[in-house]
Protein backbone atom coordinates (compact mmCIF):
# COMPACT_ATOMS: atom_id res chain seq x y z
CA UNK A 1 0.00 0.00 0.00
CA UNK A 2 1.31 3.44 -0.84
CA UNK A 3 1.90 5.97 1.89
CA UNK A 4 -0.96 8.47 2.28
CA UNK A 5 0.03 11.89 0.93
CA UNK A 6 -0.13 14.87 3.26
CA UNK A 7 -3.29 17.00 2.96
CA UNK A 8 -1.30 20.17 3.52
CA UNK A 9 2.44 20.81 3.22
CA UNK A 10 4.45 23.68 4.62
CA UNK A 11 4.87 25.36 1.22
CA UNK A 12 1.07 25.62 0.82
CA UNK A 13 0.79 28.00 3.77
CA UNK A 14 1.46 31.73 4.04
CA UNK A 15 1.15 34.25 6.85
CA UNK A 16 -2.33 35.78 6.83
CA UNK A 17 -4.05 32.70 5.37
CA UNK A 18 -7.47 32.06 6.88
CA UNK A 19 -8.68 28.65 8.02
CA UNK A 20 -12.23 27.64 7.07
CA UNK A 21 -14.73 28.43 9.86
CA UNK A 22 -16.26 25.61 11.87
CA UNK A 23 -19.81 26.03 13.18
CA UNK A 24 -21.25 23.71 15.80
CA UNK A 25 -24.61 23.85 17.56
CA UNK A 26 -23.92 23.15 21.22
CA UNK A 27 -26.51 21.06 23.06
CA UNK A 28 -26.60 19.69 26.61
CA UNK A 29 -25.36 16.45 25.04
CA UNK A 30 -22.29 18.25 23.62
CA UNK A 31 -21.41 19.54 27.09
CA UNK A 32 -22.00 16.21 28.86
CA UNK A 33 -20.12 14.20 26.20
CA UNK A 34 -17.17 16.59 26.51
CA UNK A 35 -17.12 16.37 30.30
CA UNK A 36 -17.33 12.57 30.18
CA UNK A 37 -14.59 12.32 27.55
CA UNK A 38 -12.23 14.31 29.79
CA UNK A 39 -13.36 12.55 33.00
CA UNK A 40 -14.44 15.85 34.45
CA UNK A 41 -17.17 14.83 36.87
CA UNK A 42 -17.74 18.26 38.40
CA UNK A 43 -21.51 18.91 38.49
CA UNK A 44 -21.47 22.24 36.64
CA UNK A 45 -20.76 20.27 33.47
CA UNK A 46 -23.79 17.95 33.76
CA UNK A 47 -26.25 19.28 36.36
CA UNK A 48 -28.17 22.38 35.30
CA UNK A 49 -29.56 23.08 38.79
CA UNK A 50 -26.08 22.98 40.28
CA UNK A 51 -24.69 25.26 37.56
CA UNK A 52 -27.46 27.79 38.10
CA UNK A 53 -27.50 27.76 41.91
CA UNK A 54 -23.82 27.27 42.72
CA UNK A 55 -22.08 28.84 39.74
CA UNK A 56 -24.69 31.46 38.92
CA UNK A 57 -24.52 30.57 35.23
CA UNK A 58 -27.55 30.16 32.99
CA UNK A 59 -26.86 26.50 32.28
CA UNK A 60 -24.16 23.81 32.28
CA UNK A 61 -21.13 24.86 30.24
CA UNK A 62 -18.25 23.36 28.19
CA UNK A 63 -15.21 22.45 30.30
CA UNK A 64 -11.68 23.59 29.54
CA UNK A 65 -10.03 20.28 28.51
CA UNK A 66 -12.86 19.60 26.06
CA UNK A 67 -12.40 23.04 24.52
CA UNK A 68 -8.75 22.07 23.99
CA UNK A 69 -10.02 19.01 22.11
CA UNK A 70 -12.25 21.22 19.93
CA UNK A 71 -9.23 23.38 19.09
CA UNK A 72 -7.18 20.29 18.25
CA UNK A 73 -9.92 18.97 15.95
CA UNK A 74 -10.22 22.37 14.26
CA UNK A 75 -6.47 22.49 13.57
CA UNK A 76 -6.11 18.93 12.31
CA UNK A 77 -9.24 19.18 10.14
CA UNK A 78 -7.20 21.81 8.30
CA UNK A 79 -3.74 20.18 8.32
CA UNK A 80 -4.76 16.56 7.86
CA UNK A 81 -3.13 13.74 9.84
CA UNK A 82 0.48 14.76 9.05
CA UNK A 83 0.06 17.99 11.04
CA UNK A 84 1.72 17.53 14.44
CA UNK A 85 0.80 19.88 17.25
CA UNK A 86 3.76 21.31 19.12
CA UNK A 87 2.17 23.79 21.47
CA UNK A 88 -1.19 25.35 22.33
CA UNK A 89 -1.82 28.30 24.63
CA UNK A 90 -5.39 28.97 25.50
CA UNK A 91 -7.30 31.48 27.47
CA UNK A 92 -10.94 31.24 28.49
CA UNK A 93 -12.89 34.45 28.72
CA UNK A 94 -16.48 33.32 29.02
CA UNK A 95 -18.60 30.18 29.04
CA UNK A 96 -20.26 28.29 26.18
CA UNK A 97 -23.76 26.97 26.89
CA UNK A 98 -26.34 24.63 25.32
CA UNK A 99 -28.25 26.61 22.68
CA UNK A 100 -25.11 28.48 21.60
CA UNK A 101 -23.73 28.09 18.09
CA UNK A 102 -19.99 28.14 18.55
CA UNK A 103 -17.84 29.31 15.68
CA UNK A 104 -14.12 28.60 15.40
CA UNK A 105 -12.07 30.88 13.18
CA UNK A 106 -8.33 30.85 12.63
CA UNK A 107 -5.57 32.68 10.82
CA UNK A 108 -1.93 31.90 10.12
CA UNK A 109 0.19 34.26 12.24
CA UNK A 110 3.63 32.95 11.34
CA UNK A 111 5.51 30.47 9.16
CA UNK A 112 9.05 29.51 10.20
CA UNK A 113 11.60 26.75 9.73
CA UNK A 114 13.67 25.93 12.81
CA UNK A 115 17.34 24.89 12.91
CA UNK A 116 16.40 21.19 12.60
CA UNK A 117 14.56 21.90 9.33
CA UNK A 118 11.11 21.50 10.89
CA UNK A 119 8.40 23.69 9.31
CA UNK A 120 6.22 25.45 11.87
CA UNK A 121 2.94 27.25 11.34
CA UNK A 122 1.66 29.65 14.02
CA UNK A 123 -2.12 29.96 14.31
CA UNK A 124 -4.39 32.40 16.14
CA UNK A 125 -7.80 30.86 16.73
CA UNK A 126 -10.95 32.20 18.34
CA UNK A 127 -14.01 30.39 19.61
CA UNK A 128 -16.97 32.76 19.55
CA UNK A 129 -20.73 32.82 19.99
CA UNK A 130 -22.83 35.51 18.27
CA UNK A 131 -19.61 37.42 17.54
CA UNK A 132 -18.45 37.43 21.19
CA UNK A 133 -15.08 35.75 21.70
CA UNK A 134 -15.37 33.09 24.43
CA UNK A 135 -11.88 31.55 24.22
CA UNK A 136 -8.72 32.15 22.27
CA UNK A 137 -5.97 29.73 21.31
CA UNK A 138 -2.53 30.26 19.82
CA UNK A 139 -1.06 27.12 18.41
CA UNK A 140 2.17 25.94 16.80
CA UNK A 141 1.79 23.03 14.43
CA UNK A 142 4.44 21.31 12.31
CA UNK A 143 3.75 20.43 8.66
CA UNK A 144 5.87 18.32 6.30
CA UNK A 145 8.39 20.56 4.51
CA UNK A 146 8.68 18.13 1.57
CA UNK A 147 7.69 14.63 0.44
CA UNK A 148 10.33 12.99 2.63
CA UNK A 149 9.47 14.86 5.80
CA UNK A 150 6.98 13.61 8.35
CA UNK A 151 6.88 15.66 11.58
CA UNK A 152 5.68 12.59 13.53
CA UNK A 153 8.89 10.71 12.73
CA UNK A 154 11.08 13.41 14.27
CA UNK A 155 12.86 12.12 17.38
CA UNK A 156 13.47 14.22 20.49
CA UNK A 157 16.65 15.80 19.05
CA UNK A 158 14.79 17.03 15.95
CA UNK A 159 11.55 18.10 17.66
CA UNK A 160 11.59 21.51 19.33
CA UNK A 161 7.97 22.34 20.09
Amino acid at each position, binding site marked *: *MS*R*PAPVLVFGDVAEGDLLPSLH*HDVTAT*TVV*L*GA*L*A*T*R*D*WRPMHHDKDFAQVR*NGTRDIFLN*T*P*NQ*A*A*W*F*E*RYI*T*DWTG*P*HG*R*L*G*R*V*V*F*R*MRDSVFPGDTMVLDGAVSEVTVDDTGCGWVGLDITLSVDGDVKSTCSARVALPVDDDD*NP*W*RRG*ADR*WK*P
Partner: protein
Amino acid sequence: MTVIDEVRALIGVAQYEETGEFPVERSYVWTMCASVENGNPLFWDDDAARDITGGPIAPPTMLSVWFRPHHWAPGRTGEHLPLKVHFDLKERLELPEAVMTDNTMVFHEPVRPGDVLSTRQVLRSVSDEKKTKLGTGRFWVIDVEYTNQQGRTVGVESYTGFGYRRATDPGGADGGAP
Protein backbone atom coordinates in the same frame (compact mmCIF):
# COMPACT_ATOMS: atom_id res chain seq x y z
CA MET B 1 11.71 32.26 57.19
CA THR B 2 8.50 34.00 56.14
CA VAL B 3 5.70 32.10 54.43
CA ILE B 4 6.56 33.59 51.04
CA ASP B 5 10.21 32.53 51.42
CA GLU B 6 9.09 29.02 52.35
CA VAL B 7 6.82 28.90 49.32
CA ARG B 8 9.53 30.23 47.01
CA ALA B 9 11.96 27.59 48.32
CA LEU B 10 9.75 25.07 46.47
CA ILE B 11 10.43 26.67 43.07
CA GLY B 12 11.97 24.05 40.79
CA VAL B 13 11.23 21.17 43.20
CA ALA B 14 9.27 18.18 41.82
CA GLN B 15 6.18 17.52 43.93
CA TYR B 16 3.28 15.08 43.90
CA GLU B 17 4.90 12.53 41.61
CA GLU B 18 2.41 9.83 40.66
CA THR B 19 1.92 7.08 38.12
CA GLY B 20 -1.40 6.69 36.29
CA GLU B 21 -3.88 4.20 37.76
CA PHE B 22 -4.36 2.50 34.39
CA PRO B 23 -2.73 2.45 30.95
CA VAL B 24 -3.77 4.87 28.21
CA GLU B 25 -7.00 3.42 26.83
CA ARG B 26 -7.84 3.33 23.15
CA SER B 27 -11.59 3.28 23.77
CA TYR B 28 -11.22 6.53 25.65
CA VAL B 29 -9.53 8.02 22.59
CA TRP B 30 -12.67 7.16 20.60
CA THR B 31 -14.91 8.62 23.31
CA MET B 32 -12.93 11.86 23.09
CA CYS B 33 -12.93 11.94 19.28
CA ALA B 34 -16.68 11.30 19.24
CA SER B 35 -17.31 14.16 21.68
CA VAL B 36 -15.78 16.71 19.28
CA GLU B 37 -16.44 14.82 16.02
CA ASN B 38 -12.71 14.50 15.34
CA GLY B 39 -12.32 12.29 12.24
CA ASN B 40 -8.51 12.44 12.09
CA PRO B 41 -7.58 9.06 10.51
CA LEU B 42 -4.69 8.69 12.97
CA PHE B 43 -7.28 7.69 15.58
CA TRP B 44 -9.67 5.65 13.42
CA ASP B 45 -7.66 4.02 10.64
CA ASP B 46 -4.92 1.60 11.72
CA ASP B 47 -3.21 1.71 8.32
CA ALA B 48 -2.95 5.50 8.41
CA ALA B 49 -1.70 5.36 12.01
CA ARG B 50 0.93 2.78 11.11
CA ASP B 51 2.16 4.73 8.09
CA ILE B 52 2.18 8.19 9.66
CA THR B 53 2.76 7.74 13.40
CA GLY B 54 4.18 4.22 13.57
CA GLY B 55 0.97 2.89 15.18
CA PRO B 56 -2.00 4.31 17.05
CA ILE B 57 -1.58 7.38 19.24
CA ALA B 58 -3.83 9.37 21.55
CA PRO B 59 -4.85 12.95 20.72
CA PRO B 60 -2.11 15.18 22.18
CA THR B 61 -4.60 17.43 24.00
CA MET B 62 -5.77 14.43 26.06
CA LEU B 63 -2.61 14.71 28.21
CA SER B 64 -4.39 15.66 31.43
CA VAL B 65 -7.21 13.15 30.90
CA TRP B 66 -4.92 10.25 31.79
CA PHE B 67 -4.62 11.60 35.32
CA ARG B 68 -8.30 12.24 35.88
CA PRO B 69 -9.53 8.96 37.32
CA HIS B 70 -12.71 7.12 36.49
CA HIS B 71 -15.60 8.22 38.69
CA TRP B 72 -15.33 5.16 40.90
CA ALA B 73 -12.82 2.41 41.56
CA PRO B 74 -12.99 -0.47 44.03
CA GLY B 75 -11.38 0.38 47.34
CA ARG B 76 -10.58 3.97 46.45
CA THR B 77 -10.98 6.44 49.29
CA GLY B 78 -10.76 10.20 49.20
CA GLU B 79 -10.99 12.57 46.30
CA HIS B 80 -8.26 13.05 43.72
CA LEU B 81 -7.47 16.75 43.48
CA PRO B 82 -5.61 17.76 40.34
CA LEU B 83 -3.05 20.56 40.47
CA LYS B 84 -2.45 20.15 44.19
CA VAL B 85 0.38 22.71 44.18
CA HIS B 86 -2.15 25.40 43.23
CA PHE B 87 -4.38 24.57 46.19
CA ASP B 88 -1.36 24.40 48.52
CA LEU B 89 -0.39 27.95 47.47
CA LYS B 90 -3.90 29.28 48.07
CA GLU B 91 -3.87 27.76 51.54
CA ARG B 92 -0.34 28.71 52.59
CA LEU B 93 -0.57 32.26 51.27
CA GLU B 94 -4.11 32.61 52.71
CA LEU B 95 -5.62 33.64 49.38
CA PRO B 96 -9.20 32.33 49.38
CA GLU B 97 -10.04 33.04 45.74
CA ALA B 98 -8.20 31.99 42.61
CA VAL B 99 -8.57 32.03 38.85
CA MET B 100 -6.52 30.41 36.11
CA THR B 101 -5.51 33.02 33.58
CA ASP B 102 -3.97 30.84 30.92
CA ASN B 103 -2.95 27.33 30.11
CA THR B 104 -0.12 26.18 27.82
CA MET B 105 0.40 22.62 26.61
CA VAL B 106 3.63 21.53 24.93
CA PHE B 107 3.70 18.14 23.24
CA HIS B 108 6.77 15.92 22.97
CA GLU B 109 6.87 12.13 22.35
CA PRO B 110 3.42 10.88 21.20
CA VAL B 111 1.24 9.14 23.80
CA ARG B 112 0.20 5.64 22.71
CA PRO B 113 -2.50 3.22 23.88
CA GLY B 114 -0.98 0.99 26.56
CA ASP B 115 1.44 3.65 27.82
CA VAL B 116 1.61 4.06 31.58
CA LEU B 117 2.29 7.72 32.22
CA SER B 118 3.74 9.44 35.25
CA THR B 119 3.32 13.04 36.28
CA ARG B 120 4.84 15.57 38.65
CA GLN B 121 4.13 19.18 39.50
CA VAL B 122 6.82 21.88 39.61
CA LEU B 123 6.27 25.41 40.87
CA ARG B 124 8.09 27.77 38.49
CA SER B 125 7.43 31.25 39.93
CA VAL B 126 5.45 33.24 42.50
CA SER B 127 5.07 36.99 41.96
CA ASP B 128 5.17 39.80 44.50
CA GLU B 129 1.78 41.09 45.65
CA LYS B 130 -0.20 42.74 42.85
CA LYS B 131 -3.45 44.64 42.77
CA THR B 132 -5.88 43.77 39.96
CA LYS B 133 -9.57 44.36 39.23
CA LEU B 134 -10.36 41.15 41.10
CA GLY B 135 -8.43 41.97 44.25
CA THR B 136 -4.93 41.81 45.72
CA GLY B 137 -2.88 38.66 45.40
CA ARG B 138 -0.09 36.86 43.63
CA PHE B 139 0.42 35.22 40.24
CA TRP B 140 2.11 31.84 40.05
CA VAL B 141 3.16 29.45 37.30
CA ILE B 142 2.97 25.69 37.81
CA ASP B 143 4.30 23.12 35.33
CA VAL B 144 2.76 19.68 35.18
CA GLU B 145 5.25 17.34 33.51
CA TYR B 146 4.24 14.02 31.97
CA THR B 147 6.56 11.12 31.11
CA ASN B 148 5.99 7.65 29.67
CA GLN B 149 7.16 4.27 30.99
CA GLN B 150 10.52 4.77 29.25
CA GLY B 151 11.03 8.01 31.16
CA ARG B 152 10.62 10.09 28.00
CA THR B 153 8.78 13.38 28.27
CA VAL B 154 5.43 13.26 26.48
CA GLY B 155 4.28 16.74 27.42
CA VAL B 156 4.30 19.67 29.80
CA GLU B 157 1.33 21.78 30.81
CA SER B 158 1.89 25.21 32.36
CA TYR B 159 -0.81 26.93 34.32
CA THR B 160 -0.76 30.57 35.35
CA GLY B 161 -2.92 31.13 38.42
CA PHE B 162 -3.84 34.26 40.31
CA GLY B 163 -4.68 33.73 43.98
CA TYR B 164 -6.27 36.74 45.64
CA ARG B 165 -8.36 38.31 48.34
CA ARG B 166 -11.40 40.23 47.10
CA ALA B 167 -11.05 43.98 47.51
CA THR B 168 -14.46 44.18 49.22
CA ASP B 169 -14.02 41.06 51.30
CA PRO B 170 -10.85 41.32 53.39
CA GLY B 171 -11.81 38.32 55.55
CA GLY B 172 -12.22 36.18 52.47
CA ALA B 173 -15.05 33.67 52.42
CA ASP B 174 -14.05 30.61 50.43
CA GLY B 175 -16.00 29.52 47.39
CA GLY B 176 -14.11 30.83 44.38
CA ALA B 177 -13.27 28.50 41.57
CA PRO B 178 -11.02 26.74 41.00
